């Protein structure tokens, strides 16, 4: 009888539910039905809504405006806060599904308007769309995580893609880095292969009797020759590809790519007038495009000067972008980034050793912190140290000191130029405190472990994430074994570390949609590293040390904890998913900043997140809280 002749209305309650998960999943008809059955309620701040095990829940309450806290009160009257619910969040879903009384106490903390969905209407919606029960019943469900990942991906791919432009603007001549490797006619296949190894090239031009190149042999040709059982002493020209395909240096990369694809070849000689100035491969063009991680990988390993490594960072970023666009998960992306960064480090130290001559004793570069955990993103400081073999005589010790001082100072400087900023806390190998012999390092760790002052624990956490960089790996392994043994037997140290891990409190949830820094230049942003990722890292570290697990990456540690049944399987699984999700948000955020030529950081503006991302983020914080509770129980900590 109502609303006859009704003009077409904008219904704000409908609009509100339509923008609120999971009701946004409903189709228009189902949503209309639902909206008609809603009522709007208001409760001032401080009103008790639910009493645990007493209140009958007859409706789902969606917070339209305001906020509610959920808590549990034990027999002694002590209150422990369980959650804050802000706008768009729901109350009473569990009670409805279980057909039970309220599971927690609830009280408004602000003046709060609710859109209440009566029980019957709610279950009607539940029956109409399976997304609704799924939302309520699966905490951090795979479906939603995946969907949230997809949203992130979509957002990141809106960024401009300039790499394709290179194809049409860059001349192939600029890709040439060295004169072509050329050998005279008549060299044996074996000698040709040796020559390729010596010059570390993948192709060799064969010089004809006129002096001009008449053909090319490549790795592929050598492989074919071996497979066919051709005599290695036969002349190389028997297996070469001729005539040599050439392209003028002024041609653009796109033309070169077309030429290669058309002839199904991977090498092209570049000519300047009559003269061949070099050879390019399809890889060179792919590297330029930054599309293939392997291409960057290969490019790093063939750099012959340290300066040549400086620009690799930018290419690494492009690789990561490709991976995100292709749907790779954060764990894989950070692993690839770490592999490339490891390689840059490896190559850099190799070249530096060539420059400085061999060290007096064996050493191993240690990478720590995020690098040690293989969790590097784009905003990664250097955290490194150096261990060298114990010296039998003191003059060797002095020589080592002098050598490694010079070595580390240069290495750190070059790394900074490669785009790894210096550590503000000076936790770098160039600092004499973090450059010791193996037995001195053992003593340092023993000291940390046996007399844990709070500051010592704070100081040392990132050291416990070290892993071997370039150098003599056995040194790092021995140190790791030493520490693993010591930690597992020293409960007091682990308790201190666990206590420390409780310091980083994850935000309980989004209250009023955001939990953000209230003041300063980072106002209204959320530090996703400090507030989100750190609790996971700290948790994995202390639990791994306790369980004698040697792995350093958070995901690996969690997987090992799960495999060893040191952690309930569900919790471990949720922790891995939540951690990866946070990491993904962080990566995409940093990539976005890089696209805008800004310095990458960890400050996320929650206002820019979608409802689904917010919800998933909230769940991730919930998991972090659960981990801390586990820690508290495992170490029987009394927390304030």
């Amino acid at each position, binding site marked *: 009888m109502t609303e006859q002749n*009704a*003009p077409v209305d904008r219904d704000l309650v409908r609009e509100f539910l339509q923008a609120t998960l999971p009701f946004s999943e409903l189709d228009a008809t189902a949503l209309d039905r639902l*909206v008609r059955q809603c009522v709007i309620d208001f409760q*001032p701040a401080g009103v008790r809504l639910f009493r645990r095990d007493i209140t009958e829940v007859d409706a789902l309450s969606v917070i339209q405006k305001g906020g509610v806290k959920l808590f549990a009160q034990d027999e002694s009257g002590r209150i422990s806060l369980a959650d804050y619910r802000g706008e768009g969040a729901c109350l009473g879903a569990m009670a409805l599904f279980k057909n039970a009384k309220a599971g927690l106490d609830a009280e408004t903390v602000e003046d709060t*308007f609710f859109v209440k969905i009566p029980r019957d209407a709610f279950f009607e919606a539940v029956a109409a769309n399976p997304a609704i029960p799924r939302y309520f019943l699966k905490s951090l469900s795979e479906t939603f995580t995946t969907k949230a990942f997809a949203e992130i991906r979509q957002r990141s791919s809106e960024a401009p893609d300039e790499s394709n432009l290179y194809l049409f603007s860059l001349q192939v001549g600029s890709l040439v880095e060295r004169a072509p490797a050329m050998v005279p006619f008549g060299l044996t296949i074996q000698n040709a292969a040796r020559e390729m190894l010596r010059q570390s090239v993948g192709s060799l031009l064969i010089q004809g009797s006129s002096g001009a190149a008449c053909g090319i042999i490549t790795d592929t040709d050598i492989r074919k020759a071996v497979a066919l059982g051709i005599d290695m002493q036969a002349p190389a020209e028997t297996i070469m590809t001729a005539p040599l395909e050439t392209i003028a240096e002024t041609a653009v990369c796109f033309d070169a790519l077309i030429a290669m694809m058309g002839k199904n070849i991977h090498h092209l000689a570049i000519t300047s007038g009559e003269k061949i100035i070099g050879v390019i491969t399809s890889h060179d063009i792919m590297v330029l495009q930054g599309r293939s991680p392997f291409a960057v990988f290969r490019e790093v390993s063939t750099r012959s000067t340290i300066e040549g490594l400086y620009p690799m960072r930018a290419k690494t970023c492009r690789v990561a972008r490709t991976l995100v666009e292709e749907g790779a998960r954060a764990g894989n992306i950070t692993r690839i980034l770490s592999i490339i960064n490891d390689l840059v480090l490896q190559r850099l130290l190799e070249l530096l050793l060539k420059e400085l001559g061999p060290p007096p004793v064996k050493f191993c570069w240690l990478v720590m912190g995020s690098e040690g955990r293989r969790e590097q993103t784009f905003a990664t400081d250097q955290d490194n140290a150096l261990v060298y073999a114990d010296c039998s005589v003191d003059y060797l010790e002095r020589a080592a000191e002098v050598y490694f001082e010079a070595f580390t100072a240069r290495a750190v400087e070059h790394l900074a130029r490669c785009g790894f900023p210096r550590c503000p806390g000076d936790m770098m190998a160039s600092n004499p405190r973090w450059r010791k012999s193996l037995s001195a390092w053992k003593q340092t760790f023993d000291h940390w472990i046996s007399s844990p002052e709070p500051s010592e624990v704070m100081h040392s956490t990132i050291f416990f994430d070290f892993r071997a960089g370039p150098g003599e790996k056995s040194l790092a392994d021995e140190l790791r074994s030493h520490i693993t043994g010591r930690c597992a037997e020293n409960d007091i140290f682990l308790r201190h570390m666990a206590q420390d891990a409780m310091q980083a409190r994850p935000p309980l949830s989004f209250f009023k949609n955001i939990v953000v820094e209230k003041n300063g230049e980072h106002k209204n942003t959320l530090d996703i590293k400090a507030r989100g990722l750190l609790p996971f890292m700290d948790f994995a570290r202390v639990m791994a040390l306790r369980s004698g697990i040697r792995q350093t990456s958070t995901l690996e540690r969690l997987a090992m904890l799960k495999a060893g049944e040191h952690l309930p399987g569900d919790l471990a699984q949720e922790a891995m998913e939540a951690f990866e999700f946070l990491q993904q948000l962080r990566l995409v955020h940093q990539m976005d900043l890089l696209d805008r030529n800004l310095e990458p950081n960890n400050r996320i503006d929650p206002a820019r997140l979608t409802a689904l991302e917010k919800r998933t983020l909230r769940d991730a914080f919930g998991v972090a809280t659960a981990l801390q509770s586990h820690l508290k129980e495992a170490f029987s900590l009394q927390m304030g």
Partner: protein
Amino acid sequence: MGSPFSLSRLWGQTFGQVFGQKASTGPATPVSVNNEACRGLDQSLPLEDCVFTVFDTELTGLNPAKDEIVSIGAVRIRNLQIIQGERFHVLVKPEMPLPKFSTLIHRITPERIGQAPALAQVLPDFLAFLNGTLLVGHYVELDMSFLSAACKRLYGQAPANPCLDTMLLAMSWQRRLQSAYCDQFDQSISYTLGSLSKRLGLPAFPSHDAMHDAMQTAYLFIYLTQKLRAMGIRTLRELHRPARSQSYGL
């Protein structure tokens, strides 16, 4: 006593009008049916047991003798909750041509109401919707004067529903708050629906649409009643004192 809002000089008259009236002997009209339903009203009823209808009208102008209603929006409140499914919204075609300045306010164009029914056609539905409930409006006297004029013209009798004014309720609540902190009553505060809603942090509706204004008023009403309930006001009679409309009170 002190405030001009807390006492209605029409209290006795209106009360007498509703309860002292003889049962109508003539043929039943939509108004008389509604008025009959008003008779059982118990002022000691707890607020949560009362049924309110929050309404708002859009008008061609402000003079009840000359201007007309172009739109009515209304929503029900039961148990101090807004019932989404019990709403009433109509556009009305006035007999006079729609003045341009009113269109500028409520955005109802002559074109939009061209197909709309006349007030005489929709008034029975609206009175049936009211069905003897308590009426709530923001500066309700204005809307009520138009409704009464129309009813008198069509049925020779005005609706007898007691009215509550959210503007008076807000002033009274504000005064209670302020008297707790300082003696000065701040006269500079705006009590229009929009600025009140904004100041109190209510979900905001676009203004000057009868249905949205009715919803906004409903939000304001449940906000204020819950706030006043927390101050110890439990019954209709207690609530009524500050919010009684001067001309259409109980």
